């Protein structure tokens, strides 16, 4: 999403038709049922110590998490950046609320099942130097969590709330969206590192 609306601040056209006031929850409540279903299934997989299900949650969740991150950051973002501003805003208004549900669900499913899988397979207790791969995976997850909680999610929610106003503040939106430029590279490197670490662990 690097350059999605980074230049809104300087272009700032009159209020587009898509910028109507929207009220209600910032999270799409209907989607919570799906999230609840995923969490119940995840708890069942852990309680049943069901390796196939743990593998499924970790591989599918992690693949989607990494794939969505890279795809949005480096494919969707630049495409949206070339749309006109009302089209970008219309897209983001519909896209961001869904991401508020999808990404945390993928993260919790991936990390919880991954931890459980690592314990079952003995990956957490391997000696050094192999253990460095485990430590590296913790560092990567930590860095991505900090970026998400400190930079990306506050910007996401602020932009979303601003877009729901009758007269969104283009200057603020532009400044917040520049954060995606600064962090897209770091997130990309971390996700590629995740792929390298996880494929290494899977082939021990």
């Amino acid at each position: 999403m690097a350059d999605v609306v980074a230049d809104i601040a300087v272009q700032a056209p009159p209020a587009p038709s898509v910028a109507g006031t929207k009220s209600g929850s910032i999270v799409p409540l209907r989607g919570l049922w799906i999230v609840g279903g995923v969490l119940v299934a995840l708890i069942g997989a852990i309680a049943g110590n069901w390796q196939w299900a743990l593998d499924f949650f970790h591989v599918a969740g992690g693949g989607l998490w990494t794939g969505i991150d890279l795809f949005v950051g480096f494919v969707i973002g630049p495409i949206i950046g070339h749309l006109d501003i009302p089209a970008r805003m219309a897209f983001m208004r519909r896209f961001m609320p869904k991401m508020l549900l999808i990404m945390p669900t993928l993260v919790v499913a991936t990390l919880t099942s991954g931890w459980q899988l690592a314990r079952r397979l003995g990956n957490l207790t391997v000696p050094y130097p192999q253990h460095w791969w485990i430590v590296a995976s913790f560092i990567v997850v930590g860095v991505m969590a900090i970026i998400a909680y400190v930079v990306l999610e506050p910007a996401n929610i602020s932009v979303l709330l601003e877009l729901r106003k009758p007269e969104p503040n283009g200057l603020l939106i532009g400044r917040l969206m520049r954060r995606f430029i600064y962090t897209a590279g770091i997130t990309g490197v971390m996700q590629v590192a995740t792929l390298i670490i996880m494929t290494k662990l899977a082939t021990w």
Partner: protein
Amino acid sequence: MSAPAGDAGDTTRSPIVALAVGAIVTAFVSVGYIAAYMPRNAPLAVPVALLVASGVMSLGAIVLLTRLRRFAWHLFFNVARWVLALTFVFAAMAEYVFAYDDTRGTPLVILTVVLILAAVNIPVVLGFSVARHERVAG
């Protein structure tokens, strides 16, 4: 699309964000320190010191937050409650896994404290970072 000229919200550096983020990072590092020693038991002095530092920074962030005037508290709580729900789910899943795996004693206490610190500070960071941009009359 219109905006008051020159108003880009509050995007300055904030000690509240710095303290809350510092608290999250030190809490995460304390867990990482323990995990790096596995399968051996890690010496607990460093993780405990990190958790104390994290607790102090959390307290500092909350004190500074409560001193704010002309702040969009409604927006803060609107965002923070959802984030709190999210972190609660994360924390509950983590506790469930640790309990399921028979993690007991000091490691469980440290992990629980880390989860509590994260559950407090993450909603503070997100709620404050969003609400600080809102212009409040008065």
